[in-house]
């Protein structure tokens, strides 16, 4: 199958409107390399959207302190949760008879993020011309996009792992728990490393000052 530029756009759009078909195609029919590329593009697009949103959203809906904005951190806020989700999901589903490979999980997750981009991107500019009463629409569309993404995640999980709906819901909830657990372990690890580094630094300093 050829990855024409047309398909790059058409396929994700097809997927978000026909998730069952789309995810089935993703798992069994499509070229994995192309799909992976599309997934990365989607993730990058979401990062760009997030950064633009933080910077350019209208005054009425933008509560970011411009002094504290950091595009790199905004990117981290996108990529870390996605990777955490994929890792946690993969770790769980390998134990729970899931049929998905890691790449499939990653791709399905990324494709589920398309509605966020589609809805939030235009609203960055629309939010510049709305008044306080109309911010309700902004929040409504954001909520809708999130709900849509969650639904796509659900279908993606179900198709990729070939689970029953009930089991999918359970897995997704457990994934969240696993993510929290991973976050805790990461924090623990980093703080331990920090302690070790500062310990070594102190010893070094001590030696230098004595010698």
């Amino acid at each position, binding site marked *: 199958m050829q990855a024409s530029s047309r398909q790059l756009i058409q396929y994700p759009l097809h997927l978000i409107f026909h998730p069952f078909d789309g995810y089935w195609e993703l798992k069994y029919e499509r070229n994995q390399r192309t799909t992976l590329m599309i997934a990365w593009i989607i993730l990058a697009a979401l990062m760009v959207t997030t950064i633009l949103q933080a910077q350019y959203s209208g*005054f*009425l809906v933008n509560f970011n*302190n411009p*002094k504290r904005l950091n595009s790199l951190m905004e990117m981290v806020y996108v990529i870390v949760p996605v990777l955490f989700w994929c890792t946690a999901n993969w770790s769980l589903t390998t134990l729970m008879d899931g049929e998905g490979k890691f790449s499939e999980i990653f791709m399905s997750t990324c494709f589920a993020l398309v509605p966020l981009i589609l809805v939030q991107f235009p609203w960055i500019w629309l939010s510049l*011309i709305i*008044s*306080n009463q109309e911010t309700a629409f902004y929040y409504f569309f954001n909520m809708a996009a999130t709900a849509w993404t969650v639904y796509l995640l659900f279908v993606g999980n179900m198709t990729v792992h070939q689970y029953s709906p009930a089991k999918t819901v359970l897995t997704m909830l457990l994934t969240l728990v696993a993510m929290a657990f991973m976050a805790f372990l990461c924090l623990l690890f980093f703080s331990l490393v920090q302690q070790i580094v500062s310990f070594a630094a102190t010893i070094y300093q001590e030696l230098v000052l004595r010698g």
Partner: protein
Amino acid sequence: MLNSVWKKSGWLTLGLACLLCLGNAASTAFADGQTNAYNYSYWGDAVRSPAAYEATGIVTGKELDIGPFKEPNDMHVTADQRVYVLDSGNSRIVELNQEMKLTRVIDSFDHDGTKDKFKLPQGLYVSDSGQLLIADTGNQRVVHLDKQGQLIKIVEQPQSELLKPDFQFKPLRVVMDKGERIYVMAEGVFDGFMEFNSDGTFASFIGANRVQVDPVVYLWKRFATRQQRSQMVMFTPTEFTNMDMDGEGFIYATSGDKTGLPIKKLNAQGLDILRREGYYPPQGDLLYSNEKGPSRLIDVDVGDSDMYSVLDANMGRIFTYNGDGYLLHMFGGIGNRLGQFNTPVSLERVGDRMLVLDKALGEITVFQTTEYGRTLHEAVRSYFNGDEEGSAANFAKAADMNANLEYAYAGIGKALLRQKDYAESTQYFKRSMEREGYSKAFLLYRKELLREHFSWIMSGLLLVIVMVVIAFIVRRQRRGSTHASIK
């Protein structure tokens, strides 16, 4: 060649050195004197601000030739700017006139023919008609004197079912409203202020603080047996630390509430009606070190136009808010210089001046508003009185003196909105992070813009629709023809 490069770099170095000197000069100028004032921005950062008050002098008992003040606890100022100081350690009341000169000393009163004295009084209130109320703590009573110092009545230990049988009446602070009802803040009373009728009988409690419950302690209590529970600390509401009454009879009260809302404005029912529309609820310092902890507010003084000031005993700072709860300015501090205190206990406003009483040093520091402070107060005052033009002009002036004063920009924005300069108005509202006002101005601006360019927008829209329809038809026909050719 080399020489010229050397020359150039020499000039460059000289220039940089000059810049360095300039920078240093600026920072030293910044650090000295009275400019340690700040304000909190919308984002909660402390930003520099010019001083709104500066200390002009100190009044001590020695200067007044009546012997030094000994642990003075309270102070009050009447509408005609006479200052009353409660010199607790010497059990006397010192009255000063407008120029802070001694008028008289009250240390006793005629009680049914005998001379009665105070015993370690803690609180003092002077009504606008000059009647004095003294919380005579040591004698467990509130003494009510008239203008000449003649006894009107004495409020003794109240008898009520609401009080425990072993209740000891130890009044600390006292205020009186226009209907001569007396409100007393007493030691060990957690139920709020004690309200007394004009004849001195106990009416009820008003305005109790809410109980603050620590969730962890609460969980422990759930699991504890009745006996264990009885030995645990009770959940008690925080006590008030001070109170003041404004011209309309509302009580402003401060409490040691660390997590909740330390400043309250109580109406006659005892409900808190303080407006908290500012960037942060009024609470003194937002940023503080762990070691010092949050502000411990121990006095409040209500000025005109709903402005009020609170005194923080922790850092010796005085914070002034307007009626909406915006922080206008702060000044003061703990230290040994003029304008700093050791243990500030009481705060009073005398027109343009602010008086702060120091308990340990027994002295009153007199502060005078600066140009900046006067401008800001005038702006708030004229806004309060509905004079938006005047307030905008004053706010603009204040903003000129202090570009960090975000609050002022909203005032300017409001005036511009009224003058129908919507585009400019939105900018000012945005600068003061005033979303409500921004939205109002923006809606009008949008309407204006749409009306002005209506023809262009409509024709553009029509054009787009027509083009889309044409493209659709063309595409359909093409597809039809290709399909036909395949057949």
